[in-house]
Structure formats: C-alpha cells, structure tokens
C-alpha cells in the first residue's frame, strides 16, 4: 500500500477487466464486462435499456456486490479483492450515489440526509471537517443546489417535492468530496424542464470539484451534455438466467 498513493492518484477513476458476476437465486441475472475504463474527471453517460444490467454494473463499481471473476479498480484500488466491510468503507470514502428517486431516508431533515455518508467514513468526515464545518459545507452545497432555507429547515426532507429531494440527494453524494459520483437515472422522475435545470445544477456543482461522474440513463436526449457516451451493450454482455450471454461483446 506504501507506494500506492501516487499510483492511485494517476490511476483511472474506474477500470474493469474480465469481470464476471451473477446474482444469487432467484434472479440468476449475470453480466460480463471484458474491459471498461473511465478517466479521472470524465463526465460519462452510460446508455442502455431497462433490464440491460445498468444497475448491476453500478452495484459492482460501487462495491455493493463483488464479482465472481475479474478486477474492478476504483481510483487504483482493486475493490474486487477487498472484504465486504472494506468495500463498504471504501464506498463510503470514495463514492457518492444518486438514485432514480426515493433517494432520502423517510426520516430526518435535509441536513441529516446530506451528512449521512460522513457517519460511515472517517476519511470523508475528515475531509468535510468537524461538526460545524461539515454542517456549513452541507448547507453551502444545498444552497448552491438552489434549496431555500425553508426546505433546508424542514424536519422531514422526504416530504419535500421530488425536485428538491433530488437536489438533497446530489448534495449527499457530493459532501466530503468523493472521487466518483454514480447517478442511476437521476432525472427519470423529473419532467423535461426540470430535467434540464437539474442537470445544469449537477454539472455546475460538479464543475467546482474534480469528481468523476458516471450516469446511467435510457434517455438518449441527454448525450450532448456529457464528455463521453457509452452504450452498455458495447461494454457488457447480460444474461437472463438462460445461461447465454447476449450483447455486442458476445459476438466478439
């Protein structure tokens, strides 16, 4: 690990090699990723239809599940070789995640939700600063994302509008400066006008950090905003219980 720091700093944000993963019963959904790399600071859009394995790939990259085969290096660390708790700690420290919707805990204020990742990672807590400093950062993030004081002060953030909730989710993903932001169809619950505004905010806020963004969507109209667009079928083969892998890679 000693010389790993410099290696890590220059390593790509994400590098998958020969990854094979199969969900346990009853799903048995399997995915194979031969090669997939995301450079530091990239804004990557991963396009794919529903059921194509987008969420599975994100679960792998985030270290929520470990592959049966292959290597997944996230900022230089092969998380496929880490133990479960170590992967969880690694995720808490390096990755911020935004879901499609229902992003917030059903209890707790906007601040409670935003500060949640800091509870699981001492390193991220250290980056965000102690108590008051972390709160100030969280409030600053929320304000920059356009949340008014009333919304920040609301005792139950889950009762706010979907748009407001998504902004809180983004603030939670960004707090403490993680290296990678993973967004799983964060705009699909919003209408067109709100989608545009939300993405503007997301990119503006991200622009101030060096974080890498990996966003998955089935919406091809979003492509213009991203530095690179990848079709899921180009990097991954999915298998639906039948035992056969499908997709572009399968013919290769």
């Amino acid at each position, binding site marked *: 690990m000693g010389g790993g720091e410099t290696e890590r700093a220059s390593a790509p944000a994400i590098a998958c090699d020969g990854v094979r993963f199969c*969900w*346990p019963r009853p*799903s048995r959904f399997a995915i194979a990723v031969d090669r997939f790399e995301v450079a530091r600071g990239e804004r990557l859009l991963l396009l794919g239809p529903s059921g194509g394995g987008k*969420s*599975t790939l*994100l*679960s792998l990259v*985030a270290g*929520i*599940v470990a592959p049966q085969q292959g290597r997944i290096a996230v900022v230089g660390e092969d998380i496929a070789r880490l133990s*479960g*708790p170590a992967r*969880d*700690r690694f*995720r*808490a*420290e390096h990755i911020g*995640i935004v*879901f*499609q919707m*229902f*992003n*917030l*805990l*059903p*209890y*707790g204020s906007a601040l*409670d939700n935003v500060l*949640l*990742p800091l*509870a*699981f*990672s001492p390193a991220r807590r250290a980056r965000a600063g102690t108590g008051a400093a972390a709160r100030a950062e969280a409030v600053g993030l929320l304000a920059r994302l356009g949340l008014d004081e009333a919304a920040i002060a609301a005792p*139950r953030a889950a009762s706010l509008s979907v748009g407001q909730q998504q902004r809180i989710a983004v603030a*939670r993903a960004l707090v403490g400066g993680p290296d990678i932001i993973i967004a*799983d169809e964060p705009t699909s619950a919003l209408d067109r006008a709100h989608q545009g505004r939300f993405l503007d905010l997301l990119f503006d806020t991200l622009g101030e950090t060096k974080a890498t963004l990996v966003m998955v969507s089935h919406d091809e109209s979003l492509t213009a905003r991203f530095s690179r667009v990848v079709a899921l079928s180009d990097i991954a083969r999915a298998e639906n219980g039948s035992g056969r892998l499908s997709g572009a890679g399968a013919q290769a």
Partner: protein
Amino acid sequence: MIVLKLAVASLLNRWLTGLLTVLAIAVSVMLLVGVDKVRKGARDSFAGTIAGTDLIVGARSGPLQLLLYSVFRIGNATNNITWATYRDIAQHPDVEWSVPLSLGDSHRGYRVLGTTGDYFTRYRYRGGQPLVLSPGAVFSDLFDVVLGADVAANLGYRLGDSIVIGHGLGSVSFLEHGDKPFRVAGILAKTGTPVDRTLHVSLEAIEAIHVDWQQGAPVPGQTISAEAVRSLDLTPKEITAALVGLKSKLAIFRVQRDIAAYPDEPVSAILPGAALQELWSLVGLAETALAIVAGMVVATALIGMVTMILTTLNERRREMAILRSVGARPSTILGLMTAEAGLLTTAGVGLGAVLVYGALALLRPVIDAMYGLYLPLAPPDGTELATLAAIVVAGCAAGLVPAVIAYRRSLADGMSVRL
C-alpha cells in the same frame, strides 16, 4: 452510535405503531409483574394467616384438617377435646399461654367461635400484627359478640345491634338460639384472614345457649331463660381446639410429642407454619398456572412486535438500499433492525415497570382494605430484575428474525431496488 441514532429516528418516524407496540409490551409486563406481586402477596398473606402461635391442639386427625377447621373455619372437627384435657395441656410446664376454641354454631353463614378474651391479644397474623377492635370492646357481658370486619360490613351490623345465633352450620338455620340473643359489643378491623368472617363469643356463652339443649335440639319444657342461665355454672365441658404458645420455641417438638402421648384422650398438636406450607403447596398450583399465562402474554406481545417490524420491511427496502449506498455494511443493517426491537422492548419493559409500580403504590391500600391482600411496596428484587432483563434479551432475539431477513435482502438487492 449511528446505528442507535438511526434506530431512534426510524422509530420516531413510525411513532404510532411504535407506541402501540411499546404499550402492548408494557401491558404484558404489567401483567407479568402484577401477577408475581399478587402471587407473593397472596402467599405471604396466606402464610401470615396465623402467627405467634406455636402449636394448635385438637382431637387426633390430620394436620391439614385441624388447620382448616381451627384457623380457616372450613370443615368440622372429627371430635372434641374435653375441658379437663385442655386444662392439663394448658398447665404443661412449657406452655406459656393457651386459648381454647369452640366451634359448631353459625350466624347467617358465618361461623361462631367461642373463645376467651385472651384470643384477641394472643391471636396474631401477618408478621405478628394483633387484632384491633374498631370500634367497641372485647365481650364484657355473657351475651356479647365481637364481629369480624366482613361479617359487620356484609350484614350491616353496628355496635349494640342484637343478633340471634343459629344452631349448627349453614347459611339458613332451622334451629336458632332465639331465646338468648347477643349484643354486638365490638367489631374487629379488617385483617385479610378468616377472622374477618367470624363471630366471636365467650366460651361461657356457647355453654349458656346449649344448656337447655340435648342431642342438638332444645328439650321441650326445659327452657331456661337468658337471665336464669347466668346463675348456672357455665364452665365448658368440651372445646374444639386450642391455640398454644410456648415459653421457648425449642420446646415445640417435645410438647408436641407429650400431647400426642396424652394418655386420657387421643389428641394431637400441629405446627401452624408447617401445615400452612403444606396447604399452600396444594393451593399454589394456581399460582404456577397464572405465571405461565402471564409469560404467554409477554410472548404474544413480542411476537406482535416482530410482526410489526416484519410488515414494515418491504416499505423499508429503499431505506436499506440508501444506507448501503452511503457505506453502511449489511451488519449495520442487522444491527439497526435488532436495535429497533431492543429499543421497543426496553421502552415497553420500562413503561410496564413504571406503570405496575405506580398502580401498586396507588391501589395497595384499596386492595388491602377490599380483599385483605397485603402487597408490599418494595423495589424489584433480583429475580424480578432478571426477568425484566430476560424480556429485553428475548425482544432483541426476536428482533433478529426481521433483522436477518433485512440483512439478506440488503445483500441480494444491491442497487437494483425499484419502488
């Protein structure tokens, strides 16, 4: 720390179901502790029915029967003992005091006890408490009667009222000592013992109302008036039993042997404490049944809690996925669910304990007055604390069921939860 914070926040978010669950557990704990208190109170009250008496003497029979008729006024003596025998026993060198008891008559379902004035000072109950007259005095006249608290309360008698004693037992007497009515001279304070259901008259009065009777019926044409009877010798010919106090406890078994070996008449003496314990071991089966029922109620409340947590699991799948996404381990999810069960149970047990002790503090004078059941207000003892702790542990253990399910789901769900 974060687990406990999240558990509290999550429970507060579902405060109504949480509150109802806590209440269910609290009520079950109240029942469990309450039953235990009543059980102990009943046992202590029972064991304290008679105190300060070293031996009870009666015609030779089983100890339980002797205890039942002499103390509990249940059933009848197989035989009486003669006054001469009683005098001999009373004069035994180890005997400090003795009180003769004569049973056989009744008044509207309540037993009449013929005894001496010493009965009111020698008879002790529940840790040596003496009988208290409120109001009135021990019989000074031949036809004075002292009523137990229940007799006076249930039949509405007051000082100075006139009472006719029926011959024999039974709630309706066809033969009455109507020519020799008694006057209520005193009413005893409530004791919670069979004394409350007894009418006390002097031994001489028992003799007096039977002086013109033979074979259990008045002899026609031989009526002796209440006034004329006063001039007769009213020394009793026989009594039913006697309470005996000894100069030294060490002499108990010696005196018991001496009485059993009394040559002129078959008599026996029993130790009231030992006989009470023997009797309780029969009655005590009910207490075990009560404790089992109360335990079942606690189990039901805990099952209710697990059901409550289980029903929320589906709607909380998203919550678990969010926690996993910010770095919570599956074991944290396990801990969170278990902590919720633990918090609910602890709150329920705490609330139940507070309620049952509060109710005890408020109601014990009422229960004592109404049922003669003395419930001591003591801090929970080791067994009780261990029981309460065991309920909390059982609650946490029961909480493992939904916790393990949530744990497994959080492992299998990954980020793919869509709601």
